[in-house]
Every structure is written in structure tokens, then in C-alpha cells.
């Protein structure tokens, strides 16, 4: 244990001379040689398939013509980035994206946590397993299918409206899919429906590690179920929740292109046009590689700032953070 603690900040020893420090580092690295061996395959992967391609990001600063190649395509500086912001629409579009994204973080992010805790409280193992298997099923349907099903059920002449008319005597058809006020709730509910069950897996895996003795002790103390959840269950998955949240923040400008795109129509365009769909309409179809890369870089930068900020914050509060 001592080596572990000492190792975290090797440069801090004030008395160490340069030579001896270098020697010590080499010695430590030699001692950890098997760990470096384990690191190697993954590191190679990151270099080859993640970082070498990143050199290609240069095309965001060029007018990339495939028939000239990356190197010979002319530089355009920040033109592609300027194009993202050239229209006044873009403010609205980024605003739309952020609203949907934050609604998702507020409502869709906690859904799997709550569901996981509920499942964790089920005593009957068979019932628990069956219900787990059921709730994670929607994840396997692609957005095309999910949106298709939503359309069948909620269109003007769909089942829900029929039901409202016939069973409840509703006079007016409700345009669930065309009236703008329903657009965001539907997006969020769909995400919860599709992904909440799937999202429980990671929390349930974390919960499986909780020592049952803790619960037994709590029962002895007469703690209610809610207190047990508050004092045992939640702390057990706290670090997982924080990491998931930090990573989720990195995707703040990403709200699921396909889901949104498939549900955009003339009536909800003004609140539903997000960064991805905006870029699509602007000309992704036209093979404008430089422009789409520039948008990717922009989204990455925003995500990076948020993640670094959140990570710092999390560490300040004594949590582990992502890195």
C-alpha cells in the first residue's frame, strides 16, 4: 500500500536530485514492467485507430478535395467554422440542442438509476430476473422502428386518438406528433422508454458488489427501506453515477440525430432543429467533408470543456473523477 501512495506524485520530493530521480523512475517502471505490457495492446489501439486518424482533423481547416488528397487540398483557415455560425439561425439551433440535452440529463439520466434501485429492492430472484430481461428489450429496437411504432400509435388517425374519441368522447383530435408542445416530452419519453432498462445494467452490476451484511446490519438497526437505499445503495453506486454524468456532459451537443430527424416536421422545426439536423440540412448530403469535420471539432471542444470542468469539480468534492 505504501508504494501506491508514494507513487502518485513522484516529482514532489524536494531533496531528490535529477539523476537520482531519473534512476528511481526507471526503477519503478521496470518494477511495473508487466503492467506496461498489459497497457501496450490498448495503447497501440488508441494510437493507430484513434489518434492517427485525428491528423485528419486538419481537413476542418481546409477545403478538402479527395482527388487532391489531404495534404494538397488548399487551406481555408477558419472558414468552415465561420460557416457554422454565419446564419442567425444557428443560435436558435444550438439553443434547441441544449434544451433537449438538458431535459435529457434531468429526466432521462436518472431514469435507469431509479429503475435499477427499484429492481434491486425486489426480493424474489425469479421475478427480478424476468423483469430485468423485459425492461432492457426496447434497447434493441432501432430508432426507425421506435419512431415507426410511436407514429402508428400517436398519429391523428392513430390508436391513441381513436381511443380518446371513442372511450372518452374527446371532440378534438390531438396532434401529438404535429403540435410543437408535445415534441420535447415525446423525445424524452422515447429515450426513457428505449434506454432506461438498458442503462440499469451498469448500476445493477455495481450494486451486485454491495456486501449483503451491510443491509442485514441496517435491518438490525431498524432502518426503513428508504433509509437503506439512501445510506447503502446510493453510496455504492455514487462513483458510477458521477462518472456517467461527467461523460454524459461531454455529449451535450449530441441529442441523437436519427431520433430527432425522423420526427421533425414543418410544425416542430423551429424547436426541433438541432445541431446535427441543421448540419444535415445545410449540406452533409453534398459530401462536404471539411464542413462536417469542423462541426465535429466544435462539438468536441464544447464537450471537452464541460468534461474537464466537471472532472475538476468532482475531484474538488472528493470524488475520483474520470481521469
Amino acid at each position: 500500500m505504501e508504494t501506491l501512495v508514494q507513487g502518485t506524485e513522484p516529482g514532489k520530493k524536494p531533496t531528490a536530485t535529477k539523476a537520482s530521480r531519473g534512476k528511481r523512475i526507471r526503477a519503478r517502471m521496470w518494477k511495473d514492467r508487466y503492467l506496461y505490457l498489459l497497457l501496450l495492446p490498448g495503447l497501440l489501439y488508441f494510437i493507430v485507430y484513434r489518434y492517427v486518424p485525428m491528423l485528419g482533423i486538419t481537413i476542418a481547416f481546409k477545403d478538402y478535395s479527395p482527388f487532391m488528397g489531404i495534404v494538397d487540398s488548399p487551406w481555408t483557415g477558419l472558414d468552415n467554422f465561420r460557416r457554422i455560425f454565419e446564419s442567425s439561425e444557428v443560435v436558435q439551433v444550438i439553443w434547441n440542442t441544449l434544451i433537449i440535452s438538458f431535459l435529457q440529463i434531468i429526466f432521462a439520466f436518472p431514469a435507469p438509476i431509479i429503475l435499477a434501485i427499484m429492481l434491486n429492492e425486489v426480493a424474489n430472484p425469479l421475478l427480478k430476473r424476468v423483469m430485468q430481461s423485459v425492461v432492457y428489450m426496447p434497447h434493441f429496437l432501432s430508432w426507425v422502428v421506435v419512431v415507426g411504432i410511436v407514429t402508428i400509435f400517436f398519429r391523428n388517425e392513430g390508436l391513441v386518438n381513436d381511443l380518446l374519441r371513442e372511450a372518452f368522447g374527446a371532440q378534438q383530435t390531438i396532434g401529438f406528433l404535429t403540435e410543437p408542445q408535445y415534441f420535447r416530452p415525446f423525445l424524452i419519453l422515447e429515450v426513457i422508454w428505449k434506454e432506461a432498462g438498458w442503462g440499469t445494467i451498469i448500476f445493477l452490476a455495481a450494486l451486485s458488489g454491495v456486501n449483503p451484511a451491510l443491509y442485514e446490519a441496517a435491518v438490525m438497526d431498524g432502518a426503513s427501506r428508504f433509509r437503506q437505499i439512501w445510506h447503502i445503495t446510493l453510496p455504492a453506486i455514487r462513483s458510477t453515477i458521477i462518472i456517467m454524468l461527467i461523460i454524459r456532459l461531454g455529449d451535450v451537443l449530441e441529442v441523437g440525430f436519427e431520433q430527432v430527424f425522423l420526427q421533425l416536421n414543418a410544425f416542430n422545426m423551429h424547436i426541433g432543429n438541432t445541431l446535427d439536423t441543421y448540419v444535415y440540412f445545410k449540406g452533409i448530403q453534398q459530401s462536404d467533408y471539411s464542413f462536417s469535420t469542423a462541426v465535429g471539432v466544435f462539438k468536441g471542444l464544447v464537450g471537452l470543456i464541460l468534461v474537464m470542468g466537471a472532472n475538476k469539480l468532482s475531484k474538488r468534492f472528493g470524488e475520483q473523477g474520470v481521469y
Partner: protein
Amino acid sequence: MNQKSIAERLFNSVNIGLLLLISALMLFPFLYLFSVSFSSYEDFLGSRLLLWPSNWTTDAYEYIWSSRTFRQALWTTSLVTVLGTLVNLFFTSTMAYALSRPIIGQRSVMFMVVFSLLFSAGMIPTYLVVQATGLLDSIWSLILPVAIAPFNLIVIRQFFLNIPGEMIEAGIVDGANDLQIFYKIILPLSKPALAAFSLFYAVTHWNNYFAPILYINDSSKWTIQVVLRQIVVVGETTGTLGGDNMFAAQPPPPETIQMAAILMATLPILIVYPFLQKHFAKGVMLGAVKG
């Protein structure tokens, strides 16, 4: 014979009641898919909501199964999923373990991982690298370029970090080197986490749609999502704005066939879960110290 308090019972029944309701909501569309896929097209057209087939028929399934492309795709996808998941587990767990130990450079490598999570190079540069490494048109192009998902790496590392230090200490005392500790102590302790992540990886492979489109030319190596999409989406793409393609395409297959295809493409991966599930349930003392 502990007598349960009323509050305890109320909690349980409300909890289970809610969960049953949620399960029903999640299951409902599947029931719909199921019923339509086993009905005749006439029955489908004739009824507004089919929740149980009135005349059972397996026509739709026979039609799908008779498609060579569909069968081939199921096979290719299974192969990619199994191979790919093994590769994923190897690459991810080794790297995650190394990064969970305080080795020199750990922080910078971790940052590199997080950075790549946020900044992907984009489709085209990655395509060029896949091309340069000679993987085009081979099923390895669906495996190696996604050997590690940074997100999964980060979370697995988190699991490793939560393993009590004493376990590793004990290994060191026994004279084991780091490889042995990893193999004999860490991996067995992390079974639930690894089970969860093999599921994540397997599902990602199974649902992969984009990579096969980009990297695979030979239609006999298409994966199931490509084929499924062709069956389900074909009606979406024709006839918009342009106008002249309105009649160029055949109409999409009837809904009965579409739904049968969706279920057939989903079932194989759905049944993986119950197998892995028992590993989740086997509680391992992990993170208990933190709790």
C-alpha cells in the same frame, strides 16, 4: 419468522406493482410486433390494433428465412459478435487494469482516453486509416477499429479501482507478479463487471450498422442491421422532395414481413442476456469497503 412491518409490505407491493406496470409498457410494442408478424397481411390491414393473431401463419418468417442475404447476415453478425467481443474484452480489461494501478504516465494515458471519447476523428479520416491498415472488406474492419470503447474502458477501470487494495497486496505477498495478479485475482473478482461489459460490447457489435456500410463491399459479408434496415426503411427514403424516384423502387415489404424481420434480427442477441445475467446476480464483495 420476522414479522414484516406494514410499511415494509407496502413498499414491496408498490415497488413491484410499479415495476410490473413499467415492464408491461416496455413489452407492449413487442407484443404488437409479435402479433403482426404471425398474422396474414389481410388480417393486418383489416384490424386497427392486432394484439393477438386471429389466424396464425408463419408465412412472414418463411419469407424472411428464404432470403439468402438474411441468413448469411445472421451468420456473419454472429461471428463478428463473438470474435469482436473477445477482442474487446482482452484489449479493454488489460488496459483498464494497467491504468487502475498507479504507474507512471497513468494520468496522461487516461487523459488520452477521455480526449478520444470526446474528439473522434470523424468518418473519413478513420476510413482512410482502416483502408491503410488493409482491413477493408474484411470482417476485421468491424472488430479492430472498435477494439476499445473509451467509455467502457473508463468504467471498467473504475470497477478495478474499487477492488480493495488488500487483495492485490495479498497477491504481492504471495510472490505473484502483476500478470498473475491480473489473471488470478482481478479477473475472477470482476466477473459481474466483465459480464456486463461483454454484453455491452456484444450488443454494440450486433447493432452495428454504420461500419459495415462503410467498410464492407461484398454483400455476402453484410451484417444483420444493414439487411434489416433495407427491409424496414426502404419506404422512408423514396419519394421525398426529388420526385423522380417515387416509382423507381418496389414498395417496401408488407408490415408482417417487416415485423418478422425485426424480431428475427433481435431474438439472437436478446437471448444472450439471461445467460450473462446469472453472473450479475452472483454478488462479489467489491466496493463493499467504500460503501
